[in-house]
């Protein structure tokens, strides 16, 4: 019976550890995976760690994170320790009141703290950025320091301090010589806690950071759109290890402090060792900061700037560097996850960014709401010369006079299928309703894309606002739901590469990449037609650095730059000259990357449908999702 319980305990513990650490182990393993895909093991490699070190944006974010964490830790440790000491001098009632008040930031939901800090900074006309994030971090770090220092402070008899005064010490000297050494282990562990919390924070940082400033957490979050890069796995693995070390050190110091009471003689050595260890960790962090500073060039402030807001991983980072080197304009580059997030940001602060890259329907919406600036074509010679006329024509669907947007990337939506699993030729959206492929179908987890499939299959317009049409599309999607393996976005790519599904709705740009990883995959635009989408550069009506923004757009339209971007992001470029520069014949002539006119004529562009239609779609989409 006893041994049975013990076995049960072991199994129980095993399961707990499995659930806690399996995700982290997976992450660390993937950080050494040569293949970019999560689904395929391409061999062992350090290349993601290497490219991480060369990635100036991530390093910049890392530097920001560490600088913020270090300064916030030092300041909050001083304030928190001083506050703890001061609290002990107060009357019991006042003390518990003050403690209650200082603990609020800790108990408070991060989102409330974040929003209220953001509002406060707005009211005080603080420019959101480094300073506001720092203040926010100091604010929420202080309670953690106090949490660690106060209990220790309570055990220290004030007579030790008085004894030092009595022996002739001045108050500050007495404090330093008597109370501080006893307090030190808890101060250090409080500081480590504050440091960890600061590195860890996302929500409060997100609300207080403003544009052009990122810490690691906000940087990683903004890259979600196209799936997380393997470099981020590597970075996360490093962060995990560093935080783990910090926690171990912190625990050792605490345990050491507890042991000290019993074993006084060895305690001194123990503590010195601990402090040395902590100092080592801090020095190590400082070293990383310095390195990152050198690479990231955090302090190299230039007088001219341009604030760029783009989808995650939607540019070759080298291009940014080249632009900066050539023009001397500093690029403040931020990434968004979706058109809607970008829209919310610009709607709340039109001057936050100068130049953005939204999608077609969103550009239409922004034009209709007078959020964009007409472009001065004379400042855009490359855009006029190299962007193909057919793309400008397509763009007229959302920008009738081609006044506001310069096409940047474009593509189609189609079906990616696995030739080994689907023997018949794929020509119609109908195959996604074929119950022979039950459980093998992947749909896009976004309203417009999912409805586009259903509407086009019925021969309706993908921009339909007819309630009956929308309703019948919804019915079709509900009927289809049992066959669908999953509604996903970037996982279509990985699942298809990993042979986990037979058919998936996907963007053409992803198709090029997936075909490279798994040659069995084939991409097709169904006969009923599909969506041809265009993302384009636009300038905010309230942009501050208009000339620099124009220079940026024109730079993007240079053939060799457009080519570089195409090779990096694999989404089709509308730049004719760049298309001709593509060396690989297969790609240059690929019908996936550059579909023929016959295909394009079947396709349509999304337009903004207005609030009433948006509501219909939203409600129908809810019905579809709940049918799963």
């Amino acid at each position, binding site marked *: 019976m006893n041994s049975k319980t013990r076995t049960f305990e072991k199994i129980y513990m095993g399961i707990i550890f499995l659930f806690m650490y399996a995700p982290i182990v997976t992450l660390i393993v993937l950080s050494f995976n040569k293949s970019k895909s999560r689904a395929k093991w391409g061999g062992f490699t350090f290349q993601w760690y290497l490219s991480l070190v060369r990635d100036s944006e991530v390093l910049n974010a890392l530097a920001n994170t560490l600088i913020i964490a270090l300064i916030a830790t030092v300041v909050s440790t001083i304030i928190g320790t001083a506050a703890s000491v001061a609290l002990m001098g107060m009357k019991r009632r006042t003390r518990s009141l003050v403690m209650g008040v200082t603990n609020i930031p800790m108990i408070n939901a991060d989102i409330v703290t974040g929003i209220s800090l953001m509002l406060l900074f707005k009211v005080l006309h603080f420019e959101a950025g480094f300073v506001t994030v720092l203040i926010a971090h100091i604010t929420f770090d202080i309670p953690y320091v106090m949490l660690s220092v106060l209990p220790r402070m309570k055990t220290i008899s004030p007579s*030790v301090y*008085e004894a030092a*005064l*009595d*022996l*002739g010490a001045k108050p500050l000297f007495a404090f330093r010589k008597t109370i501080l*050494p006893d307090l030190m282990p808890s101060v250090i562990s409080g500081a480590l806690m504050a440091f960890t919390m600061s590195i860890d924070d996302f929500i409060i940082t997100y609300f207080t950071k403003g544009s052009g400033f990122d810490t690691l957490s906000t940087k990683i979050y903004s890259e979600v759109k196209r799936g997380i890069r393997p470099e981020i796995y590597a970075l996360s693995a490093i962060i995990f290890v560093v935080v783990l070390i910090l926690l171990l050190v912190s625990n050792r110091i605490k345990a050491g402090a507890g042991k000290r009471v019993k074993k006084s003689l060895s*305690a*001194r050595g123990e503590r010195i060792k601990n402090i040395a260890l902590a100092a080592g960790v801090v020095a190590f962090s400082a070293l990383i900061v310095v390195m990152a500073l050198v690479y990231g060039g955090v302090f190299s402030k230039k007088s001219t700037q341009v604030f760029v807001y783009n989808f995650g991983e939607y540019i070759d980072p080298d291009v940014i560097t080249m632009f900066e080197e050539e023009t001397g304009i500093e690029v403040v580059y931020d990434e968004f996850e979706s058109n809607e997030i970008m829209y919310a940001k610009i709607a709340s602060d039109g001057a936050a960014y100068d130049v953005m890259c939204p999608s077609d329907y969103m550009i239409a919406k922004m034009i209709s709401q007078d959020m964009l600036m007409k472009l001065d074509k004379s400042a855009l010679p490359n855009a006029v010369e190299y962007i193909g006329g057919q793309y400008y024509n397509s763009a007229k669907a959302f920008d009738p006079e081609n006044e506001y947007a310069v096409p940047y990337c474009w593509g189609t939506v189609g079906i990616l299928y696995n030739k080994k699993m689907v023997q018949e030729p794929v020509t119609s959206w109908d195959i996604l309703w074929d119950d022979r492929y039950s459980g093998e179908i992947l749909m896009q987890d976004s309203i417009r894309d999912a409805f586009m499939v259903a509407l086009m299959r019925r021969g309706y317009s993908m921009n339909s606002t007819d309630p009956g049409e929308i309703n019948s599309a919804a019915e079709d999607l509900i009927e289809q739901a049992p066959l669908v393996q999953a509604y996903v976005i970037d996982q279509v790519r990985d699942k298809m590469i990993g042979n986990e599904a037979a058919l998936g709705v996907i963007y053409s740009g992803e198709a090029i990449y997936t075909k490279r990883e798994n040659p069995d995959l084939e991409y097709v635009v169904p006969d009923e037609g599909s969506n041809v989408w265009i993302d384009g550069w636009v300038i905010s009506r309230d942009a501050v650095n208009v000339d620099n923004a124009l220079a940026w757009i024109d730079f993007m339209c240079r053939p060799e730059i457009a080519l570089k971007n195409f090779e990096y992001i694999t989404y089709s470029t509308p730049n004719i000259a760049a298309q001709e520069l593509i060396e690989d014949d297969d790609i240059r002539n690929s019908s996936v990357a550059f579909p023929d006119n016959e295909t394009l004529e079947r396709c349509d562009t999304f337009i903004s449908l207005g609030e009433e239609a948006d509501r219909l779609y939203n409600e129908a989409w809810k019905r579809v999702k709940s049918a799963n």
Partner: protein
Amino acid sequence: MEKELINLDHIYKSYDGQLILDDLSLVIHENEFVTLLGPSGCGKTTTLRIIGGFETPDKGRVIFDGQDITALAPNKRQLNTVFQKYALFTHMDIADNIAFGLRIKNKSDQYIKDKISYALKLVNLDGYEHRMPDSLSGGQQQRIAIARAIVNEPKVLLLDEPLGALDLKLRQDMQYELIRLKRELGITFIYVTHDQEEALTMSDHIVVMNQGYIQQEGTPEAIYNEPENAFVADFIGDSNIISATMVKDELVRILGTEFPCVDKGFGVEKPVDVVIRPEDVKLVKRGEGKIPGVVSHIIFKGVHYEMEVQAGGFEWLVHSTKESPAGTEVDIDVDPFDIQVMNRPASEDEQALGVVDDV
């Protein structure tokens, strides 16, 4: 009498609206062993902390060696304190603890070294220089605390219940140690305790305090033998305190029986309290004493027997070297000079104030 060293001049101190010291005045002379004695909350520790500079009086002045030091910070006062819980610096070894004050005064290394070994010899802890404080016993720590204070050659050593945390045997040893130290150093000791035995053993001068007032000052003998009020009598040693009536000068009626005494000037037929120490109650054969009684309890205490005797409707506490078993019928007698007559206070306030006419 030696020269006046400390003068507490009409000191008032209150915390949270509660009066701790109410118009306290006290003079302490050079080279005295003064004990502030009283129950907890009587204001003795506050008085010591005011002398040490850790508290500032609300009103009144502290004069030290002719100078007003009321507002002087503790680190600038020529006195040192030994704290109740030793207050050693746990992260420094013994030598560093003792050297703390000397290093602040920038004494030379040789001087400090000599002082440390002198002080350790003085407190009988030779060779403990490099031990850490929490590896020492309570008594040893306390002696280090004393050593740490005296190396600074203070004019006054303040001791705040320094033996409170020690066990009985150690406490008695330390009492002799302190007396010896005081003699060797030739400085003033101001000692705070609630232990009347400690006070009687060590002091030259005892100040009995209660509720922020000085109840009585004097030599240990005077305090013990001639308590001025019931509080002092009750607090110092065991006592039989009995309500009585002063018939006239040198005659007092106790429990209905008249006893000759030596006190005068209380008036005629005045209600008073009398104090009779247990060792002063004589048990004699039935018929030979004044009040008949019966022994109800007896305990052997080593030096003497402690007995309770029911006589005249009062339970008398009696110490005697002679054993009288429980149930023995006895008479009680008291010699005139062993009866201490005190005015009975009309109210509790008056009792606290110690309003008693000088005898």
